[in-house]
């Protein structure tokens, strides 16, 4: 009884220190975990805000849920680690891990708790006590993950980014992705509701138009070779014009020099023409550079599509339907061979190994859908296959046959064992039979007559 609870008493201060360290470790670990979740969430949030401005109210709500959840998790982890009772055996194990590899303190504690009184048990307890009395409390430490400062910095950066992203930028990007939605938004926007940047753009565009005093009625016959008239008529729809400028600018910020030159030329030409043209269209149309830029780009696209249409028409007008000129790939060869890649080009799907072959017509018709043909085989040679043909018997001896051979052969086959007398007897017998039958037949016919 002298040693009763001695080890537990010695373990108490170590347990307290161990608990403090454990709470500290729990805080650091939970911060790291929270930062990990936050980082993921904020990245998602920034992207969603940039791409879908419409989701802003939902994102705000989700934000609240996520932040509250993370806070609750953090608090629960810390509180749980704080109220968690440290068992003395756990502390003894920690001390043993630090001081010795043979669990002397744990063993001593167990002997003390179970009340073993043998000499060796008491000796073990005293050894454990000596270790604990020499043990420095400050040595107790828990292997906690270090605080991830970089992750915290990234989270802060993302929070600032999220806050600083203006709503109208998101709106613009949204319009860029969906033109129809932009048009709808355009109609809905009133002058008062237009965000600051939009209003600035609009004002700048109008200002350019006013300064140049351009009222252009452009005849597209003189500009395009397609023969389509292309009137650019701009009214007083300032909002839509301003929005269109922004739209075209955002699309063609990196437009090529050719387009720029073309724009300048057409601008020059139009201005010359409008100088001599009537001013009657003054009240009806205003030409703005942004629209012109956008329309020139559209004209280019139109030219390309016209040329393709011409090709198609040419193909249709010919006697047979020839392949498109763009389709310069040669028709697949009919020769049998290995499929797959040939000379770095994809296989034509014929012969040999390869992936999906052309559909088989009959099977496709029967099944009602394309039936791919797979040929599973190895590249190595297969097993040799011998074919036995039913050939007529013939001479398979190359050497010349002598007369003796032939005679001997035939003599063996035709060798008769019937004597001549017997042969004559049998022949006569059958002759008599035949004659008898003939005679009887003749007598019958006579009687009938």
């Amino acid at each position, binding site marked *: 009884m002298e040693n009763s609870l001695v080890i537990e008493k010695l373990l108490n201060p170590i347990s307290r220190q161990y608990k403090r360290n454990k709470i500290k470790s729990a805080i650091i670990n939970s911060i790291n975990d929270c930062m990990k979740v936050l980082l993921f969430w904020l990245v998602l949030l920034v992207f969603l805000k940039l791409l879908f401005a419409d989701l802003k109210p939902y994102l705000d709500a989700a934000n609240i849920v996520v932040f509250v959840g993370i806070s609750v998790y953090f608090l629960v982890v810390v509180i749980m680690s704080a109220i968690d009772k440290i068992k003395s055996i756990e502390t003894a194990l920690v001390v043993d891990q630090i001081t010795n590899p*043979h669990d002397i303190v744990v*063993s001593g504690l167990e*002997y003390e708790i179970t009340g073993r009184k043998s000499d*060796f048990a008491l000796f073990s307890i005293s050894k454990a006590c000596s270790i604990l009395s020499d043990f420095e409390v400050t040595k107790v430490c828990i292997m906690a993950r270090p605080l991830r400062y970089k992750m915290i910095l990234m989270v802060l950066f993302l929070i600032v980014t999220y806050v600083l992203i203006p709503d109208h930028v998101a709106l613009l990007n949204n319009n860029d992705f969906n033109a129809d939605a932009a048009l709808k938004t355009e109609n809905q926007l009133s002058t008062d509701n237009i965000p600051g940047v939009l209003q600035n753009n609009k004002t700048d565009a109008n200002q350019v138009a006013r300064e140049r005093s351009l009222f252009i009625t452009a005849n597209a016959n003189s500009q395009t070779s397609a023969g389509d008239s292309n009137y650019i008529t701009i009214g007083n729809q300032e909002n839509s014009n301003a929005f269109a400028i922004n739209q075209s600018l955002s699309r063609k910020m990196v437009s090529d020099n050719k387009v720029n030159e073309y724009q300048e030329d057409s601008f020059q030409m139009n201005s010359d023409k409008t100088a001599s043209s009537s001013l009657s269209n003054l009240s009806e149309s205003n030409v703005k550079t942004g629209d012109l830029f956008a329309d020139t780009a559209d004209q280019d696209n139109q030219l390309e599509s016209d040329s393709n249409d011409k090709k198609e028409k040419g193909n249709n007008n010919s006697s047979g339907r020839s392949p498109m000129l763009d389709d310069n790939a040669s028709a697949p060869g009919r020769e049998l061979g290995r499929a797959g890649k040939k000379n770095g080009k994809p296989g034509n799907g014929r012969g040999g190994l390869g992936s999906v072959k052309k559909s088989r017509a009959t099977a496709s018709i029967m099944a009602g859908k394309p039936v791919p043909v797979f040929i599973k085989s190895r590249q190595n040679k297969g097993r040799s296959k011998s074919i036995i043909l039913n050939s007529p018997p013939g001479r398979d001896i190359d050497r010349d046959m002598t007369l003796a051979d032939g005679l001997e052969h035939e003599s063996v086959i035709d060798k008769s064992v019937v004597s001549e007398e017997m042969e004559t007897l049998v022949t006569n017998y059958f002759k008599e039979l035949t004659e008898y039958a003939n005679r009887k037949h003749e007598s019958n016919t006579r009687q009938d007559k």
Partner: protein
Amino acid sequence: MRTESMKVTQDRINEFKTIFSELKSQVQSHFIGQEKLIEDVIGAFFVGGHVLLEGVPGLGKTMLAKTLAEAAGLSYERIQCTPDLMPSDIIGYKTLVETEGGSHHVAFETGPIMSNFILVDEINRATPKTQSALLEAMQEGQVTVGREKMKLPVPNFFIATQNPVEHEGTYPLPEAQLDRFLIKLNVQYPDKPDYHKIIDLTAYGKVAKVNSVLTSETLLKMQRVVEEVEVPYSVIDYIVDIVRASQPQCSGLDIVKSNVVLGVSPRAVQAIVMMAKVRSLIDDRCSVSCNDVKSVVHAALRHRIISSFAAVSSGVDIDSIITELVGFVDDTK
């Protein structure tokens, strides 16, 4: 009072350590290298268990046993097993003896088994009948001849050797026979520096005489010291978990389920505990730890796990299975 008890205990531990180290140094004077092997053999000797040494010819198995017997100062007999060795050649036989007066009577002539220290050389060359004659002697410490039972002298220690390479004309020991051995030790080739020592020792005739450092009374006293060493319940649980994990029917280890036919018996728990006790005493402790168990578990389980044909054909050896077992069982409970 308590201080005196502590002092006595410490003295007993010190005495054990001293005798152990003396015996070890005497053996090391003849058997070079392989310190762990020597410690395990002496440990089994102090526990009162029997040792099976396995190794290719020329590694000094017989030399080790002979040196230990001489250092222990016990009566020593050697039995060289051959296929025509009969049980009576080991145990003894009854013979008609003529007395001085001219009368006759039947007397029992004891065999070499009636000794403290018995080296059974190349045990797998003896026939199963002769091997079985050793069963009772090893387990019960007695032999039965006719209706007469005779106790073997105490202490009683068997060291058997066998060659793992030659299989022709041999009779592999049955599982029951193997289980009688406390530990099975594999004798390995010596390290390079040890070769020099071996040459120096043998080629120049410098073989020193082995001094006897032990008596049978001292050995029995040391065996009682070992028995008194405490084993925590947590360590016993750990040993039991290892033993149960080696049994295919209750193991959670795939390597055991697929490669082991027969797991270890409860006798293995006793072997591990006793050998771990010796380990703790050598380390100046009087309580067994999980690390002590880990250091002896291979020797104690190696011959008790019977692997399947699939394991043998796929090259899975028993030691690797035991290593998996030790890694599988949690020692922090």
